[in-house]
């Protein structure tokens, strides 16, 4: 079955620290993967996407993600977190005619 798992429900980091949010997927064919961010009271905004090619993809707001087929993972990273990065982060995979989202990771940033 097609699925996305985000193992961490909550993550807290200090401002300026590095960040890694985990995402594991289950998909039979080549996955098309996405990371979205949802700020409080807002809709979802695309951070980055992976379709093919270079397994390290760059996104907006200084985020990057690395696709690792052997680990079925697509982890999101940022070298230095800003207070404005506090939000809910969703990993998603394109399934058959639809997009499957993980349960989200809530990021809290300490000043």
């Amino acid at each position, binding site marked *: 079955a097609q699925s996305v798992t985000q193992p961490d429900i909550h993550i807290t980091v200090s401002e300026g620290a590095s960040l890694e949010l985990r995402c594991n997927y289950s998909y039979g064919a080549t996955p098309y993967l996405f990371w979205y961010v949802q700020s409080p009271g807002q*809709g*979802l905004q695309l951070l980055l996407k992976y379709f093919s090619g270079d397994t390290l993809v760059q996104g907006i707001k200084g985020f990057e993600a690395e696709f690792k087929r052997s680990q079925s993972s697509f982890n999101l990273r940022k070298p230095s977190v800003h207070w404005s990065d506090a939000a809910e982060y969703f990993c998603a995979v*394109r399934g058959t005619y639809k997009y*499957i989202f993980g349960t*989200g990771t809530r990021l809290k940033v300490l000043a």
Partner: protein
Amino acid sequence: DTAVSQTPKYLVTQMGNDKSIKCEQNLGHDTMYWYKQDSKKFLKIMFSYNNKELIINETVPNRFSPKSPDKAHLNLHINSLELGDSAVYFCASSYGGTTSGSVFEQYFGPGTRLTVT
């Protein structure tokens, strides 16, 4: 310019009432979606339309009826509202709803917070 817009942003109503949420996209996309996000932020697909044709209906109660008058609009009508319908409803759009070889990201609206009392 707003890419995907929804109205209303907030909707407070009583059990048993009927209400509608409207969605419009100006991106030229051919596929539109409705999602329900519960209080735990879980995002669940409800419906998807491609070129006005229903392609996904995820075991949603038949009290929920989507309607797509054209490719740019997808409305959601809910009959006999129940307490459990309280959630945030998101509309989204993309290209390539039925063509597996074409994969594009979704664009989301700002959401409609529905509260049923």
